[in-house]
């Protein structure tokens, strides 16, 4: 798979640091699975975390290794080192709890369907699948806060180029764009937004002109 569009380096760093908000982190994880270059960058970025971690002033710990064993599952100390060679399910399958082909799409408006993905209770933001019919022109819209879009199938084009399967669009604040979906295949993508309300605004603005409300 040839991937032309990647997350911003600052986005990958935040991911490596473990501080990227959950919905954005999910989209980056799904991209990295497809993109060896970004996976490599993330490993280099984890090295920064480890370096900072190593020079932290240690906190005093009351417990010893022996006590930790005693407090853990009874037979833990005797277990063999764990080696899991099973293939793991893809990030998307884990997110959806099933396959993309089995998603129950909800119709949003003319030519647009969506499927919201549940986040953990303490999480902020919004994560959802969006499916756009072929050749659909979306109204101009801006973004507030960070928004990440990963193309899962089909493609779309906007002012910044054409985004195909595996590509990730990392749009910062105040970027306006007008995407048009692939004339034959349409587009299925995974979209994360840092802010819930704002994302709904965007959806409303996409749907509003189409439904004439």
């Amino acid at each position: 798979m040839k991937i032309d569009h990647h997350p911003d380096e600052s986005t990958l760093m935040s991911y490596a640091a473990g501080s990227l908000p959950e919905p954005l982190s999910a989209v980056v994880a799904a991209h990295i699975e497809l993109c060896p270059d970004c996976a490599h960058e993330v490993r280099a970025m984890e090295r920064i975390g480890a370096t900072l971690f190593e020079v932290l002033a240690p906190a005093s710990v009351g417990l010893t290794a022996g006590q930790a064993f005693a407090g853990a599952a009874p037979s833990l100390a005797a277990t063999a080192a764990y080696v899991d060679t099973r293939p793991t399910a893809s990030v998307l399958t884990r997110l959806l709890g099933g396959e993309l082909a089995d998603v129950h799409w909800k119709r949003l408006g003319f030519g647009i369907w969506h499927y919201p993905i549940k986040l953990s209770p303490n999480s902020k933001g919004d994560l959802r699948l969006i499916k756009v019919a072929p050749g659909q022109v979306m109204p101009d819209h801006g973004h507030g806060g960070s928004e990440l879009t990963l193309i899962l199938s089909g493609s779309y084009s906007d002012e910044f180029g054409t985004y195909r399967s595996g590509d990730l669009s990392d749009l910062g604040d105040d970027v306006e764009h007008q995407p048009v979906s692939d004339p034959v295949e349409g587009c299925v993508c995974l979209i994360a937004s840092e802010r819930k309300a704002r994302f709904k605004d965007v959806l409303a603005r996409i749907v509003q002109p189409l439904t004439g409300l």
Partner: protein
Amino acid sequence: MAHLLQRVAQSRDTQAFAELFENFAPRIKAYMIRQGADPTTAEELAQETLMMVWRKAGLYSDTKGSATTWIFTIARNLRIDRLRREVPWQALPEGRDEQPSDDTAPDEAVSERQRRQRVHEVLETLPEDQHEVVVLSYIEGLSHSEIAERLELPLGTVKSRMRLAYQKIRESVEDLR
């Protein structure tokens, strides 16, 4: 540290594990406190991290990075899990590195040590404004928006400082090749 992990993996050496525990538990606890955990939770998470190290030691390979980096990613993922309450896919970044790999090239561990030393040196010499955002992101666990809010800066400024810091680190590490 890598040799201790290998002893744990290959011969379930509890003495080697005790050394790892003494070395890492206080740092993991400090990390968890900086991430916002109270001291009791931080100690629990440090213990959980090291138990995970014991269980998963067989998956560690020093071609994938240093022992410290590996243990850092385990601690980071546990903190994310705890914060978000068991969302299974969040274990991903570490999961990628968990596949057993081929035998280590003999000089790999050495060059990894050199890379980490370089990262350390560059971090020390970063301009204060770049160093600050990197620490807030990695150690305090703040998102870019939270950093922007905390420092009263535009989001774009936070991101560009992060990028500048990384570019310097990458250049310096690439020189080693």
